[in-house]
C-alpha cells in the first residue's frame, strides 16, 4: 500500500494499436498510469485517452459489467475491463497488456468487428415465439423454471466467450457459445412455441455438434455463465426431439393454471 507522501506507484500499460487505414500491422504503445486501489482497467484507459493520447480507441458504456461493450484480451485472458481492478492484472514485470478480442477482425486499436458474432445471434432467432392466443394475464411459470433460465438470461453479449473459442478461431460458421446459450434460453422456456424447430436448427454440425467441449467459453465469461452446459443440454435434447416436444405440449396445456404447490 502506498502511504501518504510516498511516491505513487506507476504501472506500465501496453496497448495494442492498429488503424488499418495507415498501419501495416499492429504494434504496441506503452503508457504510465498511477496505481490507486479503486482504479479499474477501464479507468486507466480513460485516463490514457483523455490525458495522454486521444487516439487510443476502445468501446465502453455502462462501466459496470452490464452493457457488454468492453470485453478485451488482457494479459492473455478475455475480460471486461470495466469491472477488473488494475491492481489485479499487473504481471511480474509490472505491466498490463491490453489487446483486442482475439480471432476477430480489428476495426481500430481495441475495437473489433463483431459482425459474425451478431449474425450468429440473429441466426438462432433469439426472440421468443409466443403462442397465438395469450392469456389475459401472465403465463404461469414455476420458480424452478425461471431458475433454469437465469443462467442464460444474464448474458450481456460481450463476445468474450465467442472470441475465446478455438472452434470460432478456425471456423466462423460455427454458431458459437453466446448464440447457443440464447437458443438454450428459448428452447427451455415453457412459453416458446417452437422448441422443436429450434433444436433442429441448432442440432446440426454448425450448431451444438461442432462444439469440441473446449470450455474456454466458461473460463472467459465475465458473468459466470456456462455455455458448455447449455450446449450439452441442447445436444441431449436434440437427440430426443420428439419426446421433448411431447413433454412441452403437455406443459403448455397447463400454462394458464396456477403452479400446484408441492
Amino acid at each position, binding site marked *: 500500500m502506498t502511504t501518504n507522501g510516498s511516491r505513487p506507484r506507476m504501472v506500465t500499460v501496453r496497448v495494442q494499436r492498429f488503424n488499418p487505414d495507415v498501419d501495416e500491422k499492429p504494434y504496441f504503445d506503452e503508457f504510465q498510469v498511477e496505481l490507486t486501489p479503486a482504479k479499474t482497467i477501464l479507468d486507466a484507459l480513460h485516463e490514457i485517452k483523455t490525458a495522454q493520447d486521444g487516439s487510443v480507441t476502445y468501446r465502453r458504456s455502462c*462501466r459496470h459489467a452490464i*452493457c457488454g*461493450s468492453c470485453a478485451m484480451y488482457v494479459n492473455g485472458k478475455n475480460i471486461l475491463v470495466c469491472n477488473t481492478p488494475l491492481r489485479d492484472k499487473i504481471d511480474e514485470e509490472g505491466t498490463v497488456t491490453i489487446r483486442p478480442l482475439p480471432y476477430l477482425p480489428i476495426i481500430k486499436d481495441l475495437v473489433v468487428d463483431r459482425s459474425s458474432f451478431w449474425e450468429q445471434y440473429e441466426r438462432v432467432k433469439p426472440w421468443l415465439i409466443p403462442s397465438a392466443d395469450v392469456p389475459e*394475464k401472465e403465463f404461469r411459470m414455476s420458480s424452478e423454471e*425461471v431458475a433454469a433460465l*437465469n443462467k442464460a*438470461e444474464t448474458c450481456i453479449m460481450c463476445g468474450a466467450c465467442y472470441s475465446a473459442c478455438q472452434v470460432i478461431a478456425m471456423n466462423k460458421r460455427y454458431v458459437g457459445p453466446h448464440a447457443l446459450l440464447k437458443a438454450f434460453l428459448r428452447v427451455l*422456456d415453457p412459453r416458446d412455441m417452437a422448441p422443436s424447430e429450434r433444436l433442429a436448427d441448432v442440432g446440426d454440425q454448425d450448431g451444438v455438434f461442432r462444439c469440441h467441449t473446449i470450455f474456454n467459453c466458461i473460463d472467459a465469461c465475465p458473468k459466470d455463465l456456462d455455455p458448455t452446459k447449455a450446449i450439452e443440454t441442447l445436444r441431449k435434447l436434440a437427440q430426443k426431439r420428439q419426446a421433448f416436444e411431447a413433454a412441452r405440449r403437455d406443459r403448455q396445456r397447463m400454462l394458464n393454471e*396456477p403452479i400446484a404447490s408441492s
Partner: protein
Amino acid sequence: MIEHEVIIVGAGLAGSWTAMVAGQRGVKDIGVLSKIHPLRSHSGAAQGGIAAALNNARPVAGTGPRGPLEPVPQGEDPPDSPELHMFDTIKGSDWLGDQDAIEIMVNEAPEIIYAYEHMGCVFSRLPDGRIAQRRFGGHSAPRANYAADYTGHVLLHTIHEQALQHGVEFYSEWYCMDLLVEDNVCRGVVAMDVLTGEIHTMRAKAVMFGTGGYGRAFEVTSNAYANTGDGVAIAYNAGVPLMDMEFVQFHPTGLYEHGILMSEACRGEGGYLTNSEDERFMERYAPDKMELAPRDLVSRSEQTEIDEGRGIGPDGKGIYLDLRHLGAEKIKARLPQIRELAIDFVGVDPIDDPIPIQPTAHYSMGGIPTDADGQVIANADGQVIADADGTPVVGFYAAGECACVSVHGANRLGTNSLLEASVFGRRAGHAIADFVQNGAELHPVTGDPAERNRQRVARLMDGAGSESVEAIAQELKQTMTDDCGIYRDKERLAQAMQHVGEMQERFKDARVMDKSKRFNTDVLAAFETEHLLTFSEVIVAGALAREESRGAHYRTDFPKRDDEGWLKHTVAHKGEPGEGPRLSDKGVNIDWDRFPPQERKY
C-alpha cells in the same frame, strides 16, 4: 442520401418499443440509429423493477410497512389499483406531473407487463407461478415487477429481439448529430457512421427520439458514458424548447466514489442506511417510511448527514448501506448483481460488511416536451403547444428519458421510468404508424446539412484551437455537482450560469487529438461534451429561475414549495447567440377534484 419512412434515434426501451410497434403495424421501412449497439443501451442497466398494479403480492397483515410479503390469494380483494399507483406517482412528482399522462401510464401498466411476459421476459415468480412483486420507494404497495436485479437487461433484450423480427433496420454505432426541422416540419437527421467517419443526411417522414438520459453532466453519476443527453441538446439546437430541465434526480445509493448504482431494491428488500455513528438516521427525516422514502428526500437526508460531519470514508462523503441482517441466502438470491458489484468495485462483500455509498446523479425528469402520444408538443419557434390545436413540429416524436410527458414532474418514483419508456414508446409507435399511413410525405431539405456537420468535425480536427475537450468536460461536471447539485441557492447558481457560459466560449477553441476518420471516439466525445454544455446551461437557468423547492429541486434560499408562483412547468428555448435560454412556462394538468395538491409528507 439515406431515406426511410421512419427514423428512430435510440434503441433503448423507448426507441425499441416504437420500432417494434410501428413494424407490427405494417410500417415497412424503419431505420433505428444507435450510437452504441442497441443491446448496450442504458435501459439494460436498470436493476430494480418496473411498476404496475398487478395485485400479485401484498404485505402480510399486521406486519407494517417493512414486513414480509405474501401472494394475494385468488379471489380476495385486490390490495392495489391503478388509482393508487396514480396517486403515488402524483405525490412523488410533488404535484408537478401532468395527471392526464400519469393516468394513461398507470392504466396501461399491467398491459405492458403482460405484453413483456408474453414476449418472453423471465420475471421472478411467486410460488403459484404469477409474477413476483416487491416494494419500492414512494410506492404504497408492492408493485415493482422484477427479474432478480437485472430487470432492465431482460426487458431490453426481449424487446430488441422482438423488434429484430419486424424488418427494422438497425444502424448500430451511428451517431446522430443534427435534427432537420424547417418550417415546423421535421425532415430527418444528420448522422455519422462511426465506423467510417462518413456523415450522412438521412431523410424520413417521421423522426422519433429515444436518446435517454443525461446524468453525465455530473461528476458522480449512475449513468453510462453514453448518457450525454445528445437528443435533448440536438432538439434544442434545432429550435425545440425543453421542459423542466432543472429537475435532476440524485439517487441515494451510488457506490462510493464510483457512482455505480446499488439498486433501490436493496432498500426494498429491507436494507438499512447508517452514518458514521452507526445510527439509522432516516428516523429523523422520514420516521414512517424510513429508508423507503422517495429518493429526493433520502438523498437530501444523506447529504445533510454528510454536510454535518457524520459521513463515512476518507473524505467523509459516504454513507453505509447495510444489508447484513438480510442474510447470505437472501442476498445471493435477490441481489446477486449488487453483491458482485460491491465486491468488484469496492472490495466489500455485503454479506459480511456494509457497503459504502453516496448520492449519485441518476435520472433526468425534464426533456423534450411531448403529448401522451409521443408527439413533440412544441414548435420550432420555441412555443409549447398547450392544446391540440396548435401546430407542433410535424413528424417529430420523442419518448423515454429524453422526453418530458410529464409523468414524473419534479421527482420520479423508482420503477416508473422503465414503465414510462415502454408505455410512451409504444404509444409513439402507434402514433407514428397512423401518421405515416395517413399519407405523410418525405420533405426536401435545403442545402447540404451533412456538409455543415462535416465542417464542425473539420474544425475540431484542424482548427488552431488549444482547449482540451476533457478538461472542459471535467470542469463542467465539477461545476454542476458543486453549484447545481442536491442543494442549490441563488448565488451558486448564478456563478454556475456564468461559468457554463465561459466554458461554452472556450469550447469554440477545443480540438481533438485523434485526427483519423475511422472509428473516431475522440470526435464523438467532443460532440458529447458540446451537448453537455448546451443543456447544462438550461438546467442551471431553470434552477435559477425556479424560486421554490419542489421534488428533486431544492433551493436552500427558498426551502418551501410555492404552488401560487410555481405550480407550472419551466420551458426553455434557445435564445440568440450569446444570450442565455429564454424561459416561459406551461400549466400543469391537474384534476382538482381527485388529486388536488397536498403537502408531500412521508
